[in-house]
């Protein structure tokens, strides 16, 4: 039987506000337990929530960026359940009237094909604290630093058909969120979290199969692995004559498997009702328009512009717009160096390689875009060859002096004086009579070897184009 997979993702991102969704406590990651919990976060009697407007702005920003409907009136609800890291005994969320309604985003697959994935909604809610299950004298510990941190839960339509598509969607979402600067969106730190709803059905069937929800997936790679594992498991169950049970399953990355959560971990009736301590959020067109006006250029339009403006390949443009910082860096290099194509190669290969090797953010990189632009300009005006430029690039990591000073100090300036080059070419012809003979007999490709010899003799400083031309001339 041929099966089709149906996947929907629920993605939680922590909105990067200074303070919590309903209190003034800091949201900084990594503080000592319970040092960032105010009397409201501790749910002391008599305390009340006040909405952080920065969180609302960020939620609306996301909605506008994916072309979603923005609710003029959205309502917070209480989601009731007991858990020690949920101090109030309810989580404040949005059920019937989320701030962000239907929208969509386009993902591009490896083969270049495009898929439009629907976003059902995105709503604001508060995060819970953390239960620390290491032993505290026979008890569990509770850390409420995270309690009340603003989350945006982004729910997709069940439009995804493969684990790869799910990852592509998630990466696209990540890219948009980072462009908007509304969240750090670091999966390893939990500032971006993903739950996957997975079901399978016979190919051609239009009804959905019974789905399971997979939780606890904390990297892009694990999203793919967890979904693939779950799809295989469901196929085996059905092909063995069994039925899929609608349940929540945890992904265990160490064992690469999913297993059902204990039934106690799955609450059933949350008894949602409108949060009476907060008024409905009412916003108008001007509010939405103001946020729209502040949107940065988004990755898709930036990519199209790069392809048109800088004559880049689709692949190069995609790499360069992968983060807003990289794109901004590239544009400085492209404009100041005067060679957009060369700039694209340098940024997407040499620079990106350097960042990956050292695990740096582009902001940490010791080579500023203005310096890289000068380096590329020197290639273009024949001061140095591309090969020498690699050495200069290495040197730029160590030296704070200018690119030209590095070239001068190391004597790396390219030899373009035709007298100098003529001497070198003459020497190469003398030293390699066999190859010269071969060339004369029509074996054109020997030229590469001879140019290489000339470059070696000049310690890489000779202009290769000049050498090439002169060699050909002399061997006529």
């Amino acid at each position, binding site marked *: 039987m041929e099966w089709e997979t149906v996947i929907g993702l629920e993605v939680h991102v922590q909105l990067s506000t200074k303070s919590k969704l309903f209190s003034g406590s800091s949201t900084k990651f990594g503080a000592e337990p319970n040092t960032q919990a105010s009397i409201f976060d501790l749910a002391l009697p008599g305390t*009340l929530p006040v909405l952080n407007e920065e969180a609302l702005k960020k939620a609306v920003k996301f909605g506008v960026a994916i072309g979603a409907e923005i609710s003029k009136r959205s309502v917070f609800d209480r989601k009731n359940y007991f858990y020690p890291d949920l101090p*109030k005994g309810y989580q404040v969320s949005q059920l019937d009237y989320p701030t962000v309604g239907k929208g969509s985003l386009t993902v591009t697959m490896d083969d270049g094909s495009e898929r439009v994935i629907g976003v059902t909604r995105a709503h604001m809610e508060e995060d819970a604290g953390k239960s620390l299950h290491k032993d505290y004298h026979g008890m569990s510990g509770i850390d409420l630093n995270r309690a009340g941190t603003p989350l945006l839960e982004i729910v997709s339509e069940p439009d995804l058909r493969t684990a790869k598509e799910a990852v592509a969607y998630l990466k696209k979402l990540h890219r948009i969120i980072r462009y908007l600067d509304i969240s750090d969106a670091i999966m390893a730190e939990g500032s971006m979290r993903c739950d996957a709803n997975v079901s399978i059905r016979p190919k051609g069937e239009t009804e959905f199969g019974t789905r399971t929800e997979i939780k606890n997936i904390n990297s892009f790679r694990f999203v793919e692995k967890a979904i693939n594992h779950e799809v295989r498991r469901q196929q085996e169950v059905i092909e063995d004559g069994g039925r899929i049970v609608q349940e929540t399953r945890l992904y265990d990355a160490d064992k690469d498997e999913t297993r059902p959560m204990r039934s106690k971990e799955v609450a059933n009736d949350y008894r949602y009702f409108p949060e009476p301590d907060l008024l409905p959020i009412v916003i108008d067109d001007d509010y939405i328009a103001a946020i729209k006006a502040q949107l940065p250029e988004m990755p898709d339009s930036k990519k199209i512009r790069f392809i048109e403006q800088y004559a880049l390949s689709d692949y190069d443009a995609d790499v360069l717009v992968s983060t807003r910082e990289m794109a901004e860096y590239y544009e400085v290099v492209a404009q100041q160096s005067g060679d957009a194509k060369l700039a694209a190669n340098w940024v997407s290969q040499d620079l990106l390689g350097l960042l990956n090797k050292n695990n740096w953010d582009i902001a940490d990189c010791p080579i500023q875009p203005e310096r890289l632009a000068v380096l590329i300009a020197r290639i273009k005006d024949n001061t140095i060859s591309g090969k020498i430029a690699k050495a200069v690039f290495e040197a730029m990591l160590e030296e704070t002096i200018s690119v030209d000073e590095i070239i001068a100090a190391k004597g790396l300036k390219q030899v373009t004086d035709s007298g100098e080059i003529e001497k070198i070419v003459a020497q190469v012809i003398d030293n390699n009579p066999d190859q010269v003979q071969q060339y004369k007999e029509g074996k054109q490709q020997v030229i590469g070897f001879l140019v290489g010899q000339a470059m070696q003799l000049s310690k890489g400083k000779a202009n290769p184009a000049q050498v090439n031309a002169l060699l050909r001339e002399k061997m006529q």
Partner: protein
Amino acid sequence: MIKSTVAELSLALAAGDISSVELTQAYLNRIAQYNGELNAFITVCEESALEQAKAADVARAKGDTSSLLGIPLAHKDIFCTEGITTTCGSRMLGNFVSPYNATVVERFNDAGVVMLGKTNMDEFAMGSSNETSFFGAVKNPWNTACVPGGSSGGSAAAVAADLCAMATGTDTGGSIRQPAAFCGITGFKPSYGRVSRWGMIAFASSLDQAGPICKSAEDAALMLNVMAGLDSKDSTSIDKPVEDYTATLNDSLQGLRIGVPKQHFAEGLSSEVEQAVRDALAEYEKMGAIIKEVDLPNSHLSVSAYYVIAPAEASANLSRYDGVRYGYRCQDPVDLEDMYKRTRSEGFGEEVKLRIMIGTYALSAGFYDAYYRKAQKIRRLIKDDFSNAFKEVDVIIGPTSPHTAFKLGSKSDPVSMYLEDIYTIAVNLAGLPAISIPAGSANGLPIGMHIVAGDFEEAKVLNVAHQFQKHTDWHRNKPSAMAKEA
């Protein structure tokens, strides 16, 4: 002196006839004398009260002329008071010392008021007789075999017996007005949003409102001047300028249109109460007011709607009492579930548990539409009833309660207790300002009259109540049992 109104005490303090320390000591003596009998206070703060009084006297000597400076007050034990136990009448919070002040407490502190202590109340404000308190029932100063009403029964009894000059209360379905009626004093519930709820322990968030419990409408105006106003810590508090509520107390009632809801003079109303209110209406006519019958067609639904909405909100509001962070925790829990179950079973009293169960049921999957959603629709209808009535009249007047204070232990059936608030509950559902003032007496027990006005017409309510008190002496009546001076 202790029997005086706040307005009178304010003049006496300003004139130097008495110091705040002397006045405070007099109330403390009176508390020592009568609290054993009445059980109106859960906590008495003798030391800090005298310190505050001393500070008030010093401030006055330096030229501070704030109207409530140095006047002794009691807070209902639902308001969080920094460093002082705040129990909400429950075992659950029996050991809870608040690390912060409620906005209401803060505002009175800033006004230089002296806090004598914290008054008894129905547990988590759930009750109409003050019998559900973990700290025991409060007795009515007019007849100690009777209840003082609830849930602000401690504050009402304390004011009626002159154990304090004024007190704070909270009103979710009648919890200021009904005890004020039973104890023969003045109790005012402002419009929803007029007074901050920050630091006031929540029962039903969309209905709870703090207000004054005192000896006259003028005192209520003086207190509200301090209590009212926007608070950035309470998202439901209203950004509307606060008037000087004393400014219009003496406006003429000539031409005032008084609405009398026919539904409030129907079956169930005792004849003495009806007579007292009709006499009061005649008094208003003498002042130039015009009496008109008004229709509140959905008022018979108010108790039912209230007993869905209030318990639903309460069921969530009281989830935080889980034994994890503060308050009562059961002994030696074997696991998390055991801790939750026993902490909440042992920490809450019967009425609170009953309401948590009602609220949980009403919000449950499959019942939400039939109960909670329907109750919210009724709430809108009730609000519309009032809006329509106020197109024709300026205020609505009726009885506060169908009868006078009943005997302790006489109402064991929850539904008959819930019907206690039949005239007051609709006002909370509509969010309107309303006052109860004494308007008569039967068998030695006071009768309360209820005056309601439109949204944020606090000044109108106080004006109408004050004019009645200028022309009558019911608010001057004192319980004879408490006549003995210390």
